[in-house]
């Protein structure tokens, strides 16, 4: 088990190097000049431009820029500075990630409890009224674009009923994040409910279920242990990748509720060609994906004892 985890962790190194290089190269080949963009519509004098480029190391060939960037990250944990206001990228990421993690945690808790809950109800009553209601509800959610849902929630709960503040304030408290978390987690909730439902409805007809019932086990144990444990594997897979997606930030949701998280930073960095910020962000996201997929693989073994890792 320990060796398996160690091997998986070692595998992350080439993946990490490959993705950072790809992103670095892609940002480099975007058209436009980020330094020139700082001067707005006004002309920039060539001497200042050249000096600024030199200071940021943008006048070096790409391989040398990549080399400097990577050595700084590995040796000094220095992700470089932003072109636009000279802020260290670690500081920018340190500001953006906590709030995104808060939002992602809330959204995740929301989709986990309600998604699985609705899925269980529908799965156990497959083909009946409750099942159909859940199916229609999830279909509705899946077909509404996220920004429409966001604006509807804002309109109804903030402006008409006045229950919530329309935007997240600069303090970014937990209670203000509930509405954005619902919008953000809504779509995944529908997927989780449907996955759970299908998986349970299918497993209800499995041989081991008939055996368990025939043995005279109490219904609670049949459903809670035998059925649930086997039905959760596809759901856990989905939830695992979803953590990465939630952490990657939600450009639209964050914009609607004025949350200054990862999504906004990614969007800004792309339009402004902020290479170092973008690579730093993506690097962290890649690590998040790698770690969650490892966790999911380990969870499989918990759910299904037949799966073992040497």
């Amino acid at each position, binding site marked *: 088990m320990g060796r398996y985890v160690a091997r998986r962790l070692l595998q992350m190194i080439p993946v990490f190097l490959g993705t950072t290089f790809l992103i670095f190269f892609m940002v480099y080949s975007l058209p436009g000049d980020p330094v*020139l963009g700082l001067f707005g519509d006004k002309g920039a004098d060539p001497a200042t431009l050249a000096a600024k480029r030199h200071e940021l190391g943008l006048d070096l060939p790409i391989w040398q820029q990549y080399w400097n960037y990577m050595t700084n990250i590995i040796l000094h944990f220095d992700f470089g500075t932003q072109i636009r206001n000279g802020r260290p990228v670690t500081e920018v990421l340190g500001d953006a990630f906590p709030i995104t993690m808060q939002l992602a945690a809330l959204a995740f808790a929301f989709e986990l409890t309600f998604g699985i809950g609705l899925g269980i109800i529908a799965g156990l009553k497959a083909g009946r009224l409750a099942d159909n209601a859940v199916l229609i509800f999830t279909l509705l959610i899946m077909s509404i674009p996220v920004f429409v849902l966001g604006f509807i929630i804002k309109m109804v709960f903030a402006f008409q009923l006045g229950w919530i503040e329309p935007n997240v304030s600069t303090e970014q408290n937990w209670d203000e994040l509930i509405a954005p978390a619902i919008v953000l987690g809504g779509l995944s909730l529908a997927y989780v409910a449907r996955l759970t439902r299908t998986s349970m409805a299918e497993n209800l007809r499995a041989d081991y279920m008939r055996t368990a019932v025939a043995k005279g086990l109490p219904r609670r144990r049949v459903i809670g242990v035998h059925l649930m444990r086997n039905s959760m594997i596809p759901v856990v897979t989905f939830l695992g990748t979803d953590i990465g997606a939630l952490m990657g930030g939600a450009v639209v949701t964050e914009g609607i509720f004025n949350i200054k998280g990862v999504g906004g930073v990614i969007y800004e960095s792309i339009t402004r060609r902020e290479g170092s910020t973008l690579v730093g962000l993506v690097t962290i996201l890649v690590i998040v994906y790698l770690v969650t997929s490892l966790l999911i693989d380990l969870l499989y073994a918990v759910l299904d004892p037949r799966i073992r890792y040497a």
Partner: protein
Amino acid sequence: MRGATHAKWAALATAVALAATACGGGGDGGGGGADGVVSSSWGDPQNPLEPANTNEVQGGKVLSMIFRGLKQYDPKTGEAKDMLAEKIETTDSTNFTVTVKDGWTFSNGEQVTAKSFVDAWNYGAHLKNNQKNAYFFGYIDGYDQVHPEKGAPTAETMSGLKVTGPRTFTVKLTQKFSTFPDTLGYAAFSPLPQAFFTDHAAWLAKPVGNGPYTVDSYSRGSQMVLKKWDGYPGTDKAQNGGITLKVYTDNNTAYTDLVAGNLDLVDDVPASQLKNVSADLGDRYINTPAGIIQTLSFPFYDPAWNKPGQEKLRTGLSMAINRDQITETIFQKTRTPAKDWTSPVLGADGGYKEICGSACEYNPTEAKKLVAEGGGIPGGTMTISYNADTGSHKEWVDAVCNSINNALGNNKACVGNPIGTFADFRAQVSTQKMKGPFRAGWQMDYPLIQNFLQPLYFTNASSNDGKYSDPEFDKLVNQANAETDTTKAVGLFQQAEEVLKGDMGAIPLWYQNGSAGYSDRVENVTLNPFSVPVYDQIKVK
């Protein structure tokens, strides 16, 4: 049990992942009257908040609150009035003697002296400091040594600046520039305290200046809290207890916060909300002219666009644009059709005059005739280039093209050419890659007619992206700069503008207004000619 060990591993890793989440708390209450705090929308400044490094409105908002320079522009008329300057004297428009008023200090108690100015200007001009407004010091003698076009600087300070006493210094310019004192209200010319040079990082984290406000706290990318400075020696003391600038990534979001009562002032009403403004805000909406003009520039470096006689083509194109209709339907009157190459905020005395006249009036028949006489559009089709990522340029470019196509009776005469990002657009414009007309915007640095003409149309000037050049124009601008009498100087600039009109060196489109909305908690909200709210005059009810 095997499963339990696995669960432990997984649970441990999950716990580590979750432990990093943070929680915030607190809230701010605001009193009323003179102590009331005003909350205002803000955008993350593009550059560090150094005076000579700030060239956009968001950083400019802060500088307007924490700095006062030798001159200050009147928020209503735009006239340059003495602020820290006791007097600025000259006999030859080249050598100036500046006397700084007594009794001014920075908010940390340090005296504002002649040295505070000279050090700040030398810092702003020096190449190693990479200040974006360095070219403002380009008129001062010795600038070439500290900021050479190529190679390393050969001097540490500009030879044209000399401290002659605790409160006096002299400025020597490289050329005659009679209105130079009037440019000194620009933020780049602000004085700086010694702390700026000795502990630069700490200063940037919490800037210290000499204006009516002091920075109380600054969390980058999120908000800045400014408090009224009680010891402020000037006459324009803050009328409120402080300003809280809150960063909004989207101006629609800021607007909804204003309507919901969570924000007192929004100085950028989104175009999509303009139709709701009167219903949402009533008379708490301001729409006033600002010193911003939008034009269409031509690539004079392209031989196809630089043939003799093409001034008729350009004039024809100008007359094919229905400015009234576009400003009304697309901009909901937040733009005013342009009638010259400057801005109405200059006022008649400052040089604003409807010089463009009929050449800026919509006249499709005359337009068609002139375009034909001017040899027609090169290649039969022209593109108008713009950046598609900011400022909703697509709508008006399409409308302008539509207007030209209708006037010329040719559906293929003009098409828009969107360029993905602003950085890319500017890179192509400044490296002369344009194949047809392109959008250009100019926000004035100081309210002088000179600022609307020289940097944009003088041969090889810094922002002359289209490479327009006319010796007659250059000659008149030089004469105007040398003229000591302001009225005569303005007259000469207007003559230069007439030359520009004859060539139609750029098509004036419209003047941009500043727009703002405010809550019923505050009153006396105005915008200055730079479209920045006059924060110190805002009163809390």
